[in-house]
């Protein structure tokens, strides 16, 4: 699916990674590990096209990603550090807008997705009255809605309770089982069948 060749990136005169090569195909989870500040988020942002200032090539379905940008954005779901949830809007309004923005969020209805993330009954209260974990869940409801094959998730388990983490892990396992691919950063040990998970450690700077 996605292939990265010879990626080089430096920030503030510090080399984050050099000669980084990896690829991910359907049915795989790629877990990116590293210390704080080792460039995990930067790597994910580069993959999504949200960060310039790198050298190297990224291929989507064997074509340079810049040539197939629109197809790539159709086929990708990105959940970043910031949830992209508007505090003044209700969870329902937030999800309505997200579905407008990404047509690939079409698997379930909004109510089904809110029920899955345990926010049933909260659909029409403004998000600023919800707790941090609940706001995070509004953003993560996209995972249940998404039919995009590639998920790029930056610390998806932050602020979630244990049950929420387990549910998201099960969801990731199911997505991979159905032929999707997931690239994520987390410090947490994933409870997903080992053979589908590969790790990249950015501290070493080389892929394994």
């Amino acid at each position, binding site marked *: 699916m996605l292939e990265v060749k010879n990626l080089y990136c430096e920030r503030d005169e510090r080399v984050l990674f050099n000669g980084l090569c990896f690829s991910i195909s359907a049915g795989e989870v790629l877990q990116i590990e590293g210390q704080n500040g080792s460039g995990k988020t930067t790597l994910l942002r580069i993959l999504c096209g949200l960060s310039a200032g790198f050298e190297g090539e990224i291929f989507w379905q064997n074509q340079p990603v810049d040539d197939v940008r629109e197809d790539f954005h159709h086929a990708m779901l990105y959940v970043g550090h910031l949830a*992209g949830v508007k505090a003044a809007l209700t969870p329902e309004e937030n999800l309505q807008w997200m579905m407008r923005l990404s047509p690939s969020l079409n698997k379930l209805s909004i109510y089904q997705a809110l029920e899955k993330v345990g926010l049933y009954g909260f659909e029409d209260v403004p998000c600023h009255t919800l707790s941090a974990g609940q706001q995070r869940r509004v953003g993560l409801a996209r995972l249940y809605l998404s039919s995009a094959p590639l998920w790029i998730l930056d610390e998806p388990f932050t602020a979630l309770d244990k049950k929420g983490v387990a549910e998201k892990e099960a969801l990731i396992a199911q997505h991979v089982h159905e032929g999707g691919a997931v690239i994520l950063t987390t410090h947490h040990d994933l409870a997903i069948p080992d053979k589908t998970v590969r790790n990249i450690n950015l501290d070493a700077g080389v892929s394994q």
Partner: protein
Amino acid sequence: MSFFFAAMKRDLLLAFRYRNDIVNPLAFFLMVAVLFPLGVSPEAKFLAQVAPGVIWVAALLASLLSVDSIFRTDFDDGSLEQMLVSPQPLVLLVLAKVFSHWLISGFCLALMSPLLAMMLFLPSQGLFALVISLLLGTPTLSLIGAIGAGLTVGLRKGGILISLLVLPLYIPVLIFGAGTVQAGTMGMPIGGYLALLSAVLVVCMMLAPFAIVAALKISVRG
């Protein structure tokens, strides 16, 4: 097209939830008209003479005051990133955001301007010229302002920088806008001024959205 209206609906809904964004520029606009005669001279003849310029400068600054917020909250809560990774046409999205910004700032300012005209003794024959020049001029201000807002959204304190970037570009609109009102109050034809304001608006509408998208990409990608 339905995406354009969905984006507009979202921004207008947000504006009605945070009413500050609507009230602030209007209050500023009104305050200038209240304070100006107190500070300079309450004499009707003098005020009528400077009213076109004062009202236009106040509208321009009120618009500038509100333009900084156009992408700010979207940047802060990650919505802007989601917009950039969306397959939807960004130019359309940006145009929808600017248009909703104009509806809550420039359009309301134009509707309120007759009140200011009366407070500043602007002759009533200039009223039409005032409202129509603001209706044609303020969308240009929003479009140009949004380029500056896009460029400075990544900076913690972009407020001053945005004025420096954008104010020089506002000047032609100010000159033609105030000129329209001046001509209108003297009973001269205003068609030429309106044609110029419209031409500037059309050019900005065609080019500014692309500049805004490029500015946002620079700000987010770093």
